[in-house]
């Protein structure tokens, strides 16, 4: 029998996982919406962020520094990848873009394996977030509550950037009609660079803050990549609210099914995706007809 505290604790687990998925999928969906590139290396960037945080934590013993290092390191890696490689692919077929980012993922994952070995690493939860909070409906680890807060704050920040700044305006315009933005004489190459780097940064940041909850391994990005694909398909590509709702739905499906029938938790997620594809192929918040 499922007890109420367990139920609520799983609901919160779903929220935490969902929030992380929102952050990762947001990077994916904005990069795709603006640049037209699906980044198959997004999961690897997430893993790289976790390792960057791990290294920084090893030197400083400060979780805040680890978070900053993960974000900053991935911002730089994002810039390098966009300038060095992705830039060459804007005029090439979508399949080639997928292939090259897939290749980048292999290089990054294998690079991490070579540098850190295959063994799982761990970043402990910061001391200021140790312990357990009594939420009255259930007891819940403080760190996970903090994750929820940190991710929410990042999303609010991202929302502000997307909907209140000049860059955001260009990004949203680009999602609607890329050609028109070009014609208007806006320097899209710089916008593309910024967006790709921001997407990588979001992935890296998510990697660090999830590291105390899961373990850090070279392959940790594979599952999150697949799950964020599911989020994007459920929510609809290029949509801020699609990513938010899709991520939370995915998190809750994973957490609640795990409580009832653990063997089916991942499978249920894909079943939900199949259902969306049948009933509303463009996704919950997607616009019909956009490819």
């Amino acid at each position: 029998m499922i007890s109420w505290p367990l139920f609520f604790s799983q609901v919160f687990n779903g929220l935490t996982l969902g929030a992380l998925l929102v952050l990762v999928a947001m990077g994916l969906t904005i990069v795709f919406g603006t640049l037209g590139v699906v980044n198959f290396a997004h999961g690897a960037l997430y893993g790289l962020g976790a390792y960057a945080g791990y290294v920084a934590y090893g030197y400083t013993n400060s979780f805040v520094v680890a978070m900053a290092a993960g974000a900053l390191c991935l911002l730089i890696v994002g810039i390098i990848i966009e300038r060095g490689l992705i830039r060459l692919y804007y005029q090439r077929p979508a399949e080639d873009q997928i292939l090259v980012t897939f290749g980048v993922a292999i290089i990054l994952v294998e690079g991490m394996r070579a540098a850190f070995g295959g063994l799982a690493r761990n970043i402990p939860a910061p001391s200021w977030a140790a312990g357990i909070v009594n939420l009255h409906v259930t007891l819940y680890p403080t760190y996970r509550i903090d994750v929820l807060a940190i991710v929410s704050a990042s999303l609010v920040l991202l929302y502000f950037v997307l909907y209140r700044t000049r860059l955001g305006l260009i990004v949203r315009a680009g999602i609607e009609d890329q050609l028109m933005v070009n014609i208007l004489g806006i320097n899209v190459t710089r916008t593309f660079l910024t967006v790709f780097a921001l997407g990588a940064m979001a992935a890296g940041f998510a990697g660090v803050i999830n590291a105390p909850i899961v373990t850090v391994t070279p392959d940790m990005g594979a599952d999150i990549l697949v799950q964020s694909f599911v989020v994007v398909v459920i929510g609809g590509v290029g949509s801020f609210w699609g990513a938010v709702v899709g991520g939370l739905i995915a998190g809750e499906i994973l957490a609640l099914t795990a409580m009832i029938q653990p063997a089916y938790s991942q499978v249920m997620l894909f079943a939900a995706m199949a259902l969306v594809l049948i009933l509303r192929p463009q996704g919950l918040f997607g616009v019909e007809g956009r490819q």
Partner: protein
Amino acid sequence: MTVRAARPAALARRFAPEIALIVILAILPAILPHIGGTYDIANRILDWGLFGLGFDLLFGFTGLLSFGQAAFYGAGGFVAAYFLIAPFTNNAIVALIAGTVAAAIFGVIIGYLSLRRAGIYFAMLTLAFGEMFFFLDISPLARWTGGENGVAGVPEPSLGFGLFTIDITDPGGLYWLLVVVFVVGFWVARRIVASPFGTVLRAIRENTARTAAVGHDVPKYKLTIFVIAAAYAGLAGGLLGLLQGYMPPDAFYLDTSGQLVVQTIIGGAGTLIGPLVGAAVWLYLYTLLQNIAGIGALWKMILGIIFVLLVTIFRRGLCGGAVVLWRRLRARPAPAPAVASASVKPTRAAPEPRRSTQRPPPTGPVVLATRNLTKRYGGLTAVDDVSFELREGEIRAVIGPNGAGKSTFFNMLANVIPPTSGTIEFNGDNITGLGATLVCQRGISKSFQINQIFPSLTVRDNLRIAVLARSYGKFRPSMLRAVDRDATVNAGIDAAAASVQLAERLDTPAAELAYGEKRRLEIGLALATQPQILLLDEPTAGMSPAERVDTVQLLRRIASGVTIVIVEHDMDVVFGLADRITVLFNGHKIAEDTPDAIQANPDVRAAYLGSQAAHESA
């Protein structure tokens, strides 16, 4: 050229690639020990090659990049292994067939779901569904699949052929089994590529929208090839279990799908043999690099770097590059005369007499009619309540200033976009909402304002795609006959090429045609479906004045057999061709009459010149 008699020379030519393969694979065991290979490695390479044949048909030929092939590889493998372990049978052939069929059935389900979205989504969806199979395998189905342990104890294959049985007990025997299966699989794949079905697959890769517009049922073709690729994967998966005596859960890993993609790109997509070569490179590098101290652990990263470099600067891969080189070497002496004769082409002598200003007005039956056709985009009414009738054999021009609603109206006629209200009738049947594919099958074909051709295919293959839609219908999975031996289709290609004056350019890739020739090919594609009604969207767009004169003559010749609706900005073209002219303005039909009457119509003048100017000129 018909090869029916089994003359040895002709047979040898027909099966040249298979014979070459068999010779190489027969010599290989003798060489293997000297190049550090083993039967085991060779067997794995062949298994990956077989797996890759299906993937290459799907990706290399149809352009559908799937990241979920592991699902079918694993499914086929586990079903086959389970059949032998349970045991439902001890005949490996039965088990392999069961695995292949199971994979194909899963292919239908996953294909149906994944193909609901195209392009990038398709890659994401196949990847996601591939992962779903992995999770199904390791937990809910663990009772049958052994979960993370896999299925152990798969017996050595015993092939039952009814009257006799072959037992295979050593890797060498397995090698020959794999050689036979691979060569047969290769032959089947090569037949598919050379079949009418294969032609449509390439058309989909080159230009999906146009393939649908000339009347092919694209979703059905895509699903069929997806299922075929799944079947190949299932067969390869079943053989994997036999090879190892054990069916590992790794077959379902995302890495398995990824490795297949990488190997195919390295070897060369769209070559069929590429995946096999890619697998050889992968496994050979793996074995080689593993033994070098210091970089052993980096072998996969090195492969990743090679892969990224190949995708960036050498996308054709090893075999693709070899094919291009081979073609270039062979084609060297030829091009000079062909180019020369083509460049003389445009200025044609002997202009035909101009159409007499008044042809008798067409009196045939009404073939195409619209009733109160309206299209609204939000608050904007692009086409407002237009009714019109077209008689058999007529040439009708639709004109109007920019923004009059011509293109919208036209696209509704071709069923490219659905009307907000109103109906379209063709030969008395309501065809509203049928979609471009079915409408084209019924006999209305459209040529586009912006060329929608199949750029890397030859003119012949371009026209073949359109002719096939007529002679084979919207979907016919004719996979084993050679498409170039179909006399009816060939005759259709020649006729279409002749009517758009491209008979001498049949073997030129469409991308290399001059602009005017591409324009004629565009019309030729619409014409080759042998439509009853031809819709021409600005056929002379972007042409030089000389080319326009040529095109008008060409259209006039074509018009003897079909009914034509033409949208055009060039008034010389319009008044030189049309029997009657419909004038649209602000979405309304403001006039419909003979060219002479239209020229004199004050409303039309006002629409074109603004009312002010109309008054001044009056």
